């Protein structure tokens, strides 16, 4: 977790500035540049996601979401407000009625009856910072837009896949790890070899037969078709097996003396003691499943069962004039992962560094 103290020490490094070697300057310069390259694109997308569709079409390069001020008109529409610089240099607010040649027909707010003409060149748009939260609410809780991007449905699908697949992954691989670490039986080494051999077959090269198998089982366009095929991971088995080898056998023997069944030993002793390894696998599994794209792309073709990643990519491919929704939904998609990362940063980085997996 990024603590306040860490940011504090980072910011206050200035105090020791007199003692900084030139190589320290290079170091911090490099680090700062890298951080900008990493964070600025994400920041830019978050800022853009709050802009109005008009500002996005114009590609307004300003960071904040500016919007032109309007005042309501009699006929239910609205007039845009400009800042008019008079010939004597004084600037006043005017509302636009229409355009005639190089002139604009305007009136002063509060006196809509006295319309007069001013040169268009003397007008300047009057803008205010107005984050457009509708970008976020329309595809989520709004009713009209929900047909183009059914965020809640995709979010539910993604969450379902992630949670169920992670639970199954933990149980199934822990059971296998338990069998391979705490029992001696005929063919144990052969089975271990078989499991590790599957590492040689990346899912990307068995797409077609996997698809045919899954469709034969009737799992196409079903979330279970996404969940089940990748539940048994050789890396998970070996991660857990290595950890369970360190649990002393005496514990198991003592439990057997008390007439505990093998399943109870697994459930009540092995699983709680393997919590560190299980949490590493859980973090990895959540990351894999939430971000998974290729396999869902093949199994799920109907939009009711789309995961968030599929929804986003389809939405991106379809249209350009819904950029405001696409950006907002992308922010919502990266939000859960980001929150998890901020909270569990230490666990995630050490877990991944120790296993060499992501």
């Amino acid at each position: 977790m990024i603590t306040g103290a860490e940011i504090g020490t980072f910011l206050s490094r200035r105090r020791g500035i007199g003692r900084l070697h030139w190589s320290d300057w290079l170091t911090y310069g490099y680090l700062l540049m890298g951080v900008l390259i990493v964070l600025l694109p994400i920041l830019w997308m978050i800022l853009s996601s709050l802009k109005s569709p008009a500002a996005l079409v114009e590609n307004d390069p300003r960071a904040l979401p500016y919007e032109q001020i309007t005042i309501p008109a009699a006929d239910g529409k609205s007039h845009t407000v400009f800042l008019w610089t008079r010939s004597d240099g004084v600037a006043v607010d005017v509302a636009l009625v229409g355009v005639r040649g190089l002139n604009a027909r305007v009136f002063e707010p509060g006196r809509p009856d006295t319309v007069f003409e001013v040169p268009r060149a003397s007008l300047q748009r009057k803008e205010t910072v107005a984050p457009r939260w509708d970008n976020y609410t329309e595809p989520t809780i709004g009713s009209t837009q929900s047909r183009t991007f059914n965020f809640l449905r995709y979010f539910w699908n993604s969450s379902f896949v992630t949670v169920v697949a992670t639970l199954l992954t933990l149980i199934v691989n822990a059971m296998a790890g338990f069998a391979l670490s705490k029992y001696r039986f005929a063919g144990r080494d052969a089975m271990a070899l078989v499991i590790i051999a599957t590492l040689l077959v990346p899912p990307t090269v068995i797409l077609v037969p996997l698809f045919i198998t899954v469709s034969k089982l009737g799992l196409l366009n079903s979330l279970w078709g996404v969940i089940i095929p990748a539940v048994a991971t050789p890396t998970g088995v070996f991660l857990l097996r290595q950890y369970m080898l360190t649990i002393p056998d005496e514990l198991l023997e003592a439990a057997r003396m008390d007439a505990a069944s093998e399943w109870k030993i697994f459930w009540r002793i092995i699983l709680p003691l393997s919590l560190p390894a299980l949490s590493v696998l859980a973090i990895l599994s959540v990351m894999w499943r939430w971000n998974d794209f290729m396999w869902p792309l093949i199994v799920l073709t109907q939009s009711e069962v789309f995961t968030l990643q599929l929804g986003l990519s389809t939405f991106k491919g379809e249209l350009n004039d819904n950029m405001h929704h696409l950006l907002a939904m992308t922010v919502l998609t990266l939000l859960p992962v980001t929150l998890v990362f901020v909270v569990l940063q230490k666990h995630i980085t050490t877990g991944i560094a120790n296993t060499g997996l992501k």
Partner: protein
Amino acid sequence: MSAALTWIWKALGDLIDGPLRSLQKHIGAHRMAYVFLAPNLIIFGLFSFWPMLLNFYIAFTGGQSVILAERPLIGVENFRELLACPSYLDPRTCPVAGYSFWTGLWNTLFFALVQVPIMVVVALVTALILNRNIRGRGFWRAVYFYPVMLSPVVVAVIWDWILKRRGILNALLDDMVSGWNDLARSGVWFEIGLGLILLLPLLPVTRALLARIASPHRLRLSHGLAVGLAILLSTWLARSGGLVLPDYRPVNWLIDQRAGWPMFWVIFVYTWGHLGFYMLILLAGLQAIPRDLYEAAEMDGTSRFRSFWRITLPLLMPTMVVVLVLSLIRAFQVFDEVYVLTGGGPGQATKMIIQHIYESAFIGDAKRYGIAAASSVLVAGLLMVLTLVQLLVTRRRAGG
């Protein structure tokens, strides 16, 4: 809350325990190992081994049906279509499927061979810097690692938004060019500034030129000459307009193929998204090197540079090999980011081999499962060699 969870946990365990306990009575405690292994092996078998065997079979069948019985055996026809090229270097000479296959393969090879070295070097430099005695290391490491957490689709959407023709990158470059041009046209202050900058390299040059002259005013003479030259040069450069850049014309980064920008950005974006992972592995490798080695080297008066070559690099080599092979395997399977970012375009410029497999089987009216399976067999061969190397290396590292 936690009491309730514990209760649920125990209840769930007892629930499963019922049938399993009676099973244990029948087969004995020892054979329960098979029961524990069963779910795993069934899933492995059904979704890894069976498909692997099936893949070979499908590679020799034709037709467009998903039902195996309806797929006619056609021998090596699929492989012939993929491999019957007069020249592999020029995919246009191949049959249709071969064209797609070889284009994807060459693009993937190019991608992997450029992307992997760049990423490994940048990851190593970043890891070395993070391994220095710096403040807030946890913060820096977290930020560099953060993109790894993001999904490929999110990464692609972010960069697509930046790289649009009227996107922020083009706007920034335009601002920079016009800002520089305004500066270059701003007159006398620009000339003075430019003159001062030019003076820095000119001073030693004139000093060296006049070194032979034995005059008491030599130093003053050389300084004067340098100042004079600087004034002349800066006025000439500024007045001639030679420093004014041509107006910036926005580049369609992901669509304009002429300068190879799409492939550049595909490599950049992929590296942006994955660098943090390899940096983390290398950093862990660096931190495993015992500190006393460096202290001993310092006692012996070894330079930092030398201890890097003699201590750091050799001890980091096993980790480096793992990173290299792992990133190579991953690069060969690149699909998600590229598919969402460019869709393989413009034309076929960034179409990778996995996209070829995916599109042969699942896109368009003609579902050529046979071609996709045959291509998979060829790619799998390549990947297996790489993975074997990785396993051997990791084992050697683990075994010491």
